[in-house]
Structures are given as C-alpha cells and as structure tokens.
C-alpha cells in the first residue's frame, strides 16, 4: 500500500454555471438582517392567522388523524378564535369571495337533515322498484338513447371518468367528469355529498350517473341521537347507508335516470380493507329500494376475489398490473378494464 500523502485539495475550478449563484449580489440589491427575515415571515403568519384563522382550523379538521392533524388543529383552533374576535376575517372573506371556484351549496339539503329522519325504526313497505326486472325474468323497460352521463366520486373516479368519456365520445354522449378528490361521504367538511348530488342533478340533469367513491371514508358521523358514531360498527354502516340512499335517490331523479354505483376493490392495507368492506355493504343496503334503477357494480370479484388484494391480474389473457402503488386506486389498465365493464352495463339500459 502506498503511504504517500495525498496532494492538498485544489480550489474548485471556476465554472461558467457558477455565475448563476451570484445573481443576488447585483448592484442595488438591498440586504437586511436575519432578524428582519424572521420578523417579516412572522408578521405575514400573524396576518394570515387573523384573516384566515377559520380556514386553518377547517384545514386541520379535513386532515386524516395523526400528529400532523393535531399540530394544525393546535394552531387552527386558537387562530379561528382570534379571527372571530377581529374584523379582518370578515373583510378578507368579503374581498375574496368572488374568486372562489367552488359552487355554492347554499339552500340544498345535506346529510344533516338525515339524522332526525332516520331516528325511527319502522319497517318500510316493499315496492316494485326494489326488484330488477331482468333479475326476476320480467320485461325490462324500453331502452332509450343516452345523451348525458355524469361520472363522479372521489379520486377513485379518476381516470375512470376519462376512460368512459373516451369510449362514449364517438357515440356523441356528453360525459361530465366531476371528481372531488379527497372528499368522502362520511366526511362533510370538504364537501357535503348530499348537497353536492342535488347541485349536480340540478345543473346537469344527467340521464345516467356513474359514482365511484370511498377512498377517504372511515370518519365519525353523527348518529340518530346526534352523538358521533365511530367507524366501523353496524351503527356507522347504517348512517353511511342512509347517506348513500339519500344520494342515490337524488341521482335517480324519480326514476328518470339510471345510477351505476361502483363498490370499492379491496385495498392493500388491512385497516383500509376493513373500512372498504363496511362501505361496500352499506352501498348494497343503501340502494336497495331502487334495484330497477340503480345498478351496483361490484368491483371486488373483478379485482380482488375473496377480498384478497393483488397488484396484477389477467387482463385479456396477459398478466397486467391493475392497481396504483398506493394499494387503493386502480391504475390506467385497471381503470380501462373497469370502464369496459361499466360501459357494457350502461349499454344494457340505453340504446345507441
């Protein structure tokens, strides 16, 4: 082994790109003290607290449980209180309201109206609408042309919405894609799906609705007594099913429209899989009264038979990855496969 002393390190050779690093040293640029930097950032933060305190609290409430949520709520709750005491929040809300891209859900009936309505436990009368004619050999209603299809849900509905739009575009069907990423039926903080469904129907009057939602469920919901019910008991499932029922009833538009409600393929994570199982059961129960108008497309046997998660499956004879790396969503190939199945189901109800 050589014991020669290594040569002293050479200073870095000048490089043409190094000039990019000195661009803040140009003439006339004012320098301040570090204290000014800290004070400026804190001043901006204080102004945000007094003008947006309530938004900070709401952002915390929308987060999944964990330390991050606790920290944001730890700041957001006092910030909301401070903002309530000062006039700046009202001023900033009034000044910026016109910029909001969110549709107004004012005046629409949301899930909060359900609590009282579901408190009684009376048996319901069975109606003919609870039977799918095809399932019992009865004559189905005549098929009619489809002009407008709404594809909605949370992130699960992407890219299914695009796939359906591409499949139906040559047939002249107007496909409205309305994913509400991060939302959930059990979490009304981001959006109340009861109200949103009413708004979607009022705005678009779709003849068919495809809904694929459930990636963000498991939040506590107020029960019939008004107390919060934690996931995933039968009580929670009943509340969820009632919410599904309210939405389904809205989407079916008194029998004018067909609804295709997709269940969740089993997620990879055991905790999520437990929630998905309850959500799927609640969907089945929720849409029961209108089996002749609402089709449940069960994705579990397609993607996760026996509720066993798998990344890949046989598609048209070759093994194909169908799930995204998060173990929740379908990837492009999986979504494309599902779009074909949904389309086949739609074509049984509608003519070209």
């Amino acid at each position, binding site marked *: 082994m*050589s014991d*020669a002393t*290594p040569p002293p*390190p050479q200073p870095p050779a000048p*490089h043409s*790109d*190094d000039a*990019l*690093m000195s661009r*803040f040293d*140009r003439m*006339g640029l*004012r*320098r*301040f*003290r*570090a204290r*000014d*930097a*800290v*004070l*400026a*950032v*804190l*001043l*901006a*933060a204080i*102004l*945000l607290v007094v003008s*947006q305190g309530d*938004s*900070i609290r709401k952002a*915390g409430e929308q987060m999944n449980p964990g330390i*991050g949520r606790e*920290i*944001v709520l730890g700041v957001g709750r006092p910030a909301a209180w401070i903002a309530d005491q000062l006039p700046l929040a009202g001023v*900033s809300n009034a000044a*910026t*309201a016109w*910029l909001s*891209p*969110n549709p107004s859900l004012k005046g629409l009936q949301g899930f909060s109206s359900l609590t009282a309505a579901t408190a009684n436990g009376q048996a319901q009368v069975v109606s003919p609408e609870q039977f799918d004619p095809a399932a019992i050999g009865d004559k189905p209603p005549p098929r009619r042309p489809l002009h407008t299809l709404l594809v909605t849900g949370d992130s699960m509905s992407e*890219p299914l919405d*695009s796939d359906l739009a*591409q499949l139906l575009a*040559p047939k002249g069907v107007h496909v409205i*894609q309305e994913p509400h*990423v*991060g*939302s959930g039926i059990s979490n009304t903080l981001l959006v109340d799906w009861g109200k949103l469904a009413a708004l979607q129907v009022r705005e678009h009057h779709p003849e068919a609705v495809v809904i694929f939602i459930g990636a963000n469920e498991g939040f506590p919901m107020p029960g019939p007594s008004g107390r919060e019910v934690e996931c995933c008991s039968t009580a929670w499932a009943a509340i969820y099913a009632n919410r599904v029922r309210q939405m389904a009833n809205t989407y079916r538009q008194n029998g004018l429209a067909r609804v295709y409600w997709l269940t969740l393929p089993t997620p990879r994570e055991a905790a999520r899989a437990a929630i998905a199982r309850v959500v799927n059961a609640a969907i089945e129960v929720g849409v029961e009264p209108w089996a002749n108008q609402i089709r449940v497309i069960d994705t579990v046997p397609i993607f996760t038979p026996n509720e066993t998660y798998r*990344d*890949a499956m046989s598609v048209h004879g*070759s*093994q194909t*990855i169908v*799930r995204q*790396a*998060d173990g929740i969503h379908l*990837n*492009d190939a999986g979504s494309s496969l599902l779009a074909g199945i949904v389309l086949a189901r739609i074509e049984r109800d509608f003519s070209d």
Partner: protein
Amino acid sequence: MLFPTVQFAIFFPIVLTISWALMSRPSLWKPFIIVASYIFYASASWRFCFLLAGVTLGNQTAAVLLRRTEDERRRRLIVGTAVALDLGVLGVFKYYSFFVQQLADVLGHAGLGVPLPLITIALPVGISFYTFQAISYVVDVKRRLVEPASLLDAAVYLSFFPHLVAGPIVRAREFLPQLARPRNPNRVAVGSGIALIALGVVEKVVIADYLARTVVEPVFAVPQAYTGPNVLLAAYGYAAQIYCDFSGYTNIAIGLALLMGYVFPQNFRSPYRATGFRDFWRRWHMTLSRFLRDFLYIPLGGNRGGRLATYRNLMITMILGGLWHGAAWTFVLWGAFQGAGLVTEHALHGRISAPAWLKWFVTFHLIVFGWILFRSESLHLAGVFLSRLLTLGAPTLWTAPVVSAIVVVIGLQLLPEKPLERFQVRIERLRPAVLAVGLAIVIVFSAATVPSQGVPPFIYFRF
C-alpha cells in the same frame, strides 16, 4: 408537505426562527436542519426517510473512500459503484413496474407467458432529484471539483428541505461551500426571498392550477370531445401551466432558501423567449440540462467524436432526459423529439438564416408540440389530440380569463429583460414589513382561488 399549504405555513416560520437562532453554532444548526428536513420529508411518507438516509450514507462512504485513494482505477470503481447504486435505487422505485410490465407484454405477445413478479412500488417523492444530487456529489469529488464533506454536511446537502422534493438540482460545489461557515446574519436577501415566494404562490395557485382546471385537464383527458380551436388552446394552456407550476415551485424554493441565508442556482430564464432548442434548454430547467450535459452528454463523448457521434450523444442524452421525467413512452418520445430538434439545429447551423421573430415563432410552436407529447396520457391520446387540432368548430373554451392568463405568462417572457429586472430590484428594496404585508395579501387572495379539494401537487413532484 406541499409549500402552499397550511402545514408548511406553520412549519416554516418555526424552522426559520430556530435556524437563525442556531446559525452561529453549526454543531447545533446542522443536526437541527437535518431533523427539520426529515420531518418535512416524513410528512409524505416516513418510510422513505430510510431511503434518503441510505442514499446519503452510501454516497458519503464513496466520497470518503475517494479521499483515501489516489489510484485512478480504484477511484473509478468507487464512483462507478456509487453511481450504479444511485441509479439502481432510481430504477427500482421509478421504473421497475413499467419495465416489468413491458417485458410481460412482449413475452405474452410472443406466447411465452413467463410469470413475472408484477408488483407496484410506491415512488418516493423527490427521488429523481436527490439521487441526481448524490451522483453530482460523488462525481465532483472524483473530479476533485469539491472536497468530500463531513457526514453532517453531506446529509444537509442532500436533505435540505427547500430543494428536497423537486429541485432545483443544486451541485455540491455550489452548496457545500455555503455550509463551510455560518451565513452572515447581516446580509440576508429578505426582499428577494419574499418577492420570489409571493411570485411562486401566484404562479402555482392562481395561474397554473386555474389553467389546469378550466382547460388543460378536461381537454387532454378526452381530446376527441373538443374542437380544433379548443384543443389548440389546451396546448398553449399547458405550455403556460407547466411553466407556472414548475417555475412557481422553484421560485418558492429559492425564496425560502434565501430567507435562510442560502443561494440556489437559477432554474428558469424566460424559456419561451428561446429562438432554438439549444437556447430553450439554456433557459428551461437549467439545473437539469447542465446535469445532463456534465454527467451524461460529455461523458458519452459530447461533440468530440465528429458529427455523427455528436448526434448520437444528443439523442441518447435527451431520450434518457425524457425518461427521467417518468416511466412512460410519451416521455421517451418527448425526449426523442427534443433530441431530434437539437440534432436538426446542429446540422442546419449556419446554413439557414431567418429573422429572430420567425426563429422564435417556430421554436415556440415546436416546444408546444413537444408538450403535447409530454402531457398526453398515452401515445394513442397524443395522436388523437394532434388529429383534433385539424378539426373546425366553435372556440367555446376561449374565455377572456383563460386567454389573458396564457398571454400574460408567455408575453411577459418576451418583454425586454432590463426593465423587468429594474422593477424586480425596486420591489426587493422595499422594507421587509411592507413585503410581509404584501405576501400575506397575495396568499389570502391566492387561497381564495383554491377549490375545495385543495392545491394539487406540483407537476414535478411525480418526477
């Protein structure tokens, strides 16, 4: 943790305050900033902190071994091993599923249905950026452009949160010297920092996300449902969106670093002002293009092997540069298109003369064409998009706000640079309190434009 979120708005003032309080004591500051950066990274997924730590340890070991040997063969072996490990990490996490699926398809079509381990692997945020920085570190040490850093310095360099998840790709020789001594607390570019953060928020939240929501996403998802004028608008819209999205992120990152006393290299210089492909790559994602030049194009031989070898090297560099953006054939095709543009420009150099405005016009539209390949979900949809460009119909999406946003984004880049710089200097000279109030107003108004589902991730987060 995205920059324009409540979580980050809570995180940063705390970290900035403690950072300056500890700045004069590097033995405390460095561990603090590493912990803060890892907390920032863990908010995406704590599991990937181990990967970041592993990449840091692996490359630092290589750097230390390089210092201990003068034997050129051994030095090459050390660097080769470190780079292979970095690329291996990148390959497994970013490209495994893609290439195994392609292989399974080919074998399936050939009737050789060999069962392959088809699994999905989560892509760690920022992996493309910090593995490239790690490569630049060991290669620069090998080239003796920079001395091996201490483990703490190397960890700060690779994990420093302002550049951790989407660059800019800061070279070791640019950052490590800044760690050699505490930043001067009397010379902080507060004005530039706050102005860049405010500009970045507007670019990302107000412009990029608005264009994405209203035009780009609907049209690129189902181009067959839109008329030619609307498809054309979506192409221009994406050119504006991707610039504002990435430039917005970069401006925020550079601004945050400035407030902490650190300087990052420039990443954009009015790219839509370019009058050729070479010019474009000197203005667009400059830290990536110089990385590709220094660590791929030149090692391949650069322009030293004659005309054909130069063309080959350009094509390889740009195709791999395209693939760096993601595991999809659209990115490969986009890279090949950029390579072909550079080759053509090289071949025609000095043979054709054209007025500057014509060069700009042609270049701009070729770049926009490239973005169509880049943005499309598949090669098939790219083809549909291009074919729809030729159809006639009503320009229903050409609304005043959308057109104004696109014109402002592209038009501002065409204005003379000097007056803009003077305007920038004037803003940067304002008192910090005035700038803070301005930043708060910008954030309040920008936040009002955010839809209920929040701010979508930066485009470059998934690269």
